[in-house]
């Protein structure tokens, strides 16, 4: 089974996302972590990933740029991307869906929200 890639510059946030994923239907999948968008792209270059879970506000390459790069890559454009960020309002949510986010979740992240997002991905 292809692994999940978690992208967040905060170790604590990555641990929270792992914890939330552990109660979803995707529990048990291997997880790879990256601390920013550029690290994520490097991993995506050499690894087949089933799902990206990414923050927006990160150094080096932010989540907006990462999402755009994934959606414009012929090889990666079909990889689902769940965005998890504190910077979610009506404006950013609409923009994120417009550029191709599969799901948009606010922080603090709850297991319930992650379960719903994973369920929606599988149903799509």
């Amino acid at each position, binding site marked *: 089974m292809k692994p999940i890639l978690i992208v967040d510059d905060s170790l604590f946030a990555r641990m929270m996302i792992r914890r939330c994923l552990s109660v979803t239907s995707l529990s048990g999948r291997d997880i790879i972590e990256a601390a920013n968008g550029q690290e994520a792209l490097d991993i995506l270059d050499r690894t087949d990933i089933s799902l990206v879970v990414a923050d927006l506000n990160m150094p080096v390459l932010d989540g907006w740029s990462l999402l755009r790069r994934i959606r414009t890559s012929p090889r990666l454009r079909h990889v689902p991307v769940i965005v998890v960020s*504190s910077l979610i309002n009506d404006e950013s949510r609409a923009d994120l869906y417009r550029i191709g986010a599969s799901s948009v979740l606010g922080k603090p992240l709850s297991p319930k929200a992650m379960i719903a997002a994973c369920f929606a991905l599988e149903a799509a």
Partner: protein
Amino acid sequence: MPVNHNTFQELVGDVLASLAFADARPSEAVFRWSQPGLFWSEIRLDAPHTGQVTLALPRPLAVELADDALGGLPPSLTEAALPDFLGELSNTLAGNLLARLHPGKPIALGLPQTGRGPRPAPAGHTFSFDVGGTSLGLTLETAACASS
């Protein structure tokens, strides 16, 4: 839109309850930024208006909140995860504040900075919260601040 103090206090309570199941109650106590053993984090508000959110709390409370948030913090990760936890907390508070105040505008934050030890009180209005008998201090500095 100006920041209403009651709105900010409610938001802090909501975020701490959601993130770490903590009961944070506004307190009249004056928060002491000079106390030893303090952990702090600050984050810049970049858009739609500028400012800064700074939070500080004693180490034992930081450990307790991080532990509760993760349902058990591995001891080997405590020292590395604590500054990260504070950075994530300030990021979450500031992001939710901007999102609540400006639902239809682009919002942006800087990256959180963290540190430990006594520090000068930041500019702005400091709110004190009682979390299980321990004080947590939170300063909001922005031109869009209203005291109602």
